[in-house]
């Protein structure tokens, strides 16, 4: 039983971002807030290994990440909203990664740069975490060992698209919390599932076309 307000009456075949689903004001407000968020990412490099060196290349003069609105590198988790985990995270480092992630304010995003952060890479070993998603939620996985600077930039652009659509884990969780507070728990769950499914379908379609959307 979906409540009629404040979500508005859903039209047949409409999607989450369809203005007909929600009140005009809420939708447009979200739209502009997300637009602001996506173009002012403040990365916090959690650089541990080789990928951190490539990250340095991405932010320095030749590749110049500032062209993509993610310029202000901050080493304090409290001042940043995008954690880029660049490099292998070993078991000894795990609790520290978690602690830093927890210190970042919502909404926050996480990019696993390189195969080590994504899956442990070729270190199938006694002291290496097999992907940071064991302990923190990841929005974007960038493959490569290390990824090329173009690869990381592509990952950031993808993240920006997800932020604009409100599809990232953090945004979904925030929306859910605010709706839960208003007592719409059932709708929250449905929305979260639907948003994730749509995102997955889009990703599959992208992969099927064999090129970025």
């Amino acid at each position, binding site marked *: 039983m979906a409540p009629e307000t404040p979500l508005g009456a859903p039209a047949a075949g409409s999607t989450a971002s369809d203005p007909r689903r929600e009140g005009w004001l809420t939708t447009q407000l979200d739209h502009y807030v997300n637009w602001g968020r996506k173009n002012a990412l403040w990365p916090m490099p959690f650089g*541990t290994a080789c990928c951190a060196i490539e990250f340095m290349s991405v932010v*320095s003069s*030749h590749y110049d990440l500032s062209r993509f609105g993610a310029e202000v590198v901050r080493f304090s988790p409290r001042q940043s909203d995008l954690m880029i985990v660049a490099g292998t995270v070993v078991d000894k480092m795990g609790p520290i990664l978690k602690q830093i992630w927890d210190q970042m304010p919502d909404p926050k995003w996480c990019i696993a740069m390189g195969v080590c952060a994504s899956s442990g890479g070729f270190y199938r070993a*006694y002291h290496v975490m097999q992907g940071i998603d064991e302990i923190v939620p990841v929005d974007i996985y960038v493959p490569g060992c290390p990824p090329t600077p173009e690869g990381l930039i592509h990952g950031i652009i993808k993240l920006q698209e997800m932020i604009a659509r409100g599809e990232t884990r953090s945004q979904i969780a925030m929306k859910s919390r605010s709706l839960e507070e208003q007592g719409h728990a059932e709708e929250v769950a449905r929305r979260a599932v639907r948003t994730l499914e749509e995102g997955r379908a889009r990703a599959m379609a992208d992969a099927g076309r064999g090129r970025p959307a």
Partner: protein
Amino acid sequence: MSAIDTPRGTMAADPSKFWGEAKDAAALEADPTVRALRAEHGAAVLGVEDFRGDLSVTIRPDDLLLVAQTLKIHPELRYDILADIAGLDNLLLDRTPRFHVVYHFYSTTRKKRVRVHVPLDDAKPAVDSLTPLYKSANWAEREAYDLFGFDFVNHPDLRRILTHEEFVGHPLRKDYPPDRRHMLSRSYSAYPGLEAEHEGRHTLVGADGIERVYVNLGPSHPATHGTLRIQALLDGEIIVDSRTEIGYLHRCFEKMAETHTYTQVFPFTDRLNYISAFNNNVGFAMAVEKLMQVEVPPRAVWIRTLLMEFNRIMDHMICIGTNLVDMGALTNFWYFFNPRERIYELLESTCGARLTVSYGRVGGVAQDIPDGFAEHARRVANEMPEFIDYVDKLATRNVIFQQRTRGTGVVNRENAISWGWSGPNGRASGLDMDFRRDAPYGGYESLEFDVPMRTDGDTFSRYMVRMLEMRESLRIIHQMLDRGVPEGPHITSDHRVALPEKNRVYGNIEALMNHFKLIMHGFSPPVGEVYSYTETPTGELGFYLVSDGSGKPYRLKVRAPSFYTFAANDEMLRGQMVSDFVAILGTLNIIAGELDR
């Protein structure tokens, strides 16, 4: 496990001989080291070996401390550097006793090396600590304790160093599965009991009973460039005590090497010192070449040496660039990152990868250089001086920079030797040691270059040595380019290790089989052990390689220069300002991948 999948080589029939092959006994006994040890400690010497020019002596464990003392102070020996300590588990070698500790000594005056094997008691693997004689033994013994579970009697602080405190077992023992993990539930401190006391406070009572400010730096800190962690107690702004904690990037290199074929180890070596990855490739390749006695063709040697020098420049650029950023001079970082991209392009043109190249192979390099490579290299080399000049003008004579770097983080020559320092850091402390000149390889003997030296041993000296070395590297590069690329193949024609040419693989069954065997099983070096070392931008990178005759290394111990440099950190920091700590750390050029392996 490595020894099971491929047939093992034959072991020596005589159990006192480990590796089967010996030099002429009389010549061996005439070696000054053997003579001196026989004279001083006749009963302690269990065996003497010479394999591929490496002298190896087996010593009774009870006498180790006395033997080491003789090695260090005997006027004809003077092995003043304890270069490395490696554990060795003989479980799959059918050899008793099960554990050995292997010490590598180097004499800076005689430029000679000796390896000392100490067999340990199976029931209780313990041996005297060498910390009273060599400071470098401190961390090296902790590592052997951590990874093998050896007990070093009288070690001042024997606890785990690379793995975490909740780890169970000793991972480099042969019966430890490579992928058995132990999760760490919480972050912990090197000051025991700090967590409980530290709740909400920022002071700590030191050993002398005085309450001091406690500062934790790292392992995720902008100035630590990687995963280093230092906990310090401050008196005002002076560091009175500190504990350095490492292992936050321990990626199990040595265990991974034991579970992969020789060629598959190359990508792992890239990720040791990932800033100059190619130098590690060559270091490892040279160890295998020494073991298998493979000849490298001149063209491959030329490519290797040229790229190693470019990598040296790049490594020093990152070190100096990031060091200056930490001191607030961001411009230099941009100046040094631009030419670095040019070197990346050069590397990319040879193998397709920018950073982790995996371009080295046993017997040569992976593929030939592209057309026009020499012109490209010259163009890149010609661009470099401009950027080095910029930084030279901006920083070297800058008053603020000098005030912050002169006289801070001083390590004198004696300490540098005791800590096992090498490379630019050692040379800044007056330790005149450069293996390109002292033990030439890769054609360095025919090239003209100076080894820049400083004697102050402070932050500024280390900076200066690197600045000057970049120019020397350019000098080497220009000499090589003037001589031109030697003609010939890029990899040896020894098809024990090198893939046969493609047209032959498609043309006849022998070459096809050869190709198939090399790809599927790799190659199997003879039984034996070698130690091979090169001069990388961080210092002496050594590979101690033990082969059981199978297709995978039985044991591969890396002598990582950063590890021994960083071991001195706590001693260096005592009495320094906390604000200088950042500058000191940056100038040591600690690369976490190499430090923790």
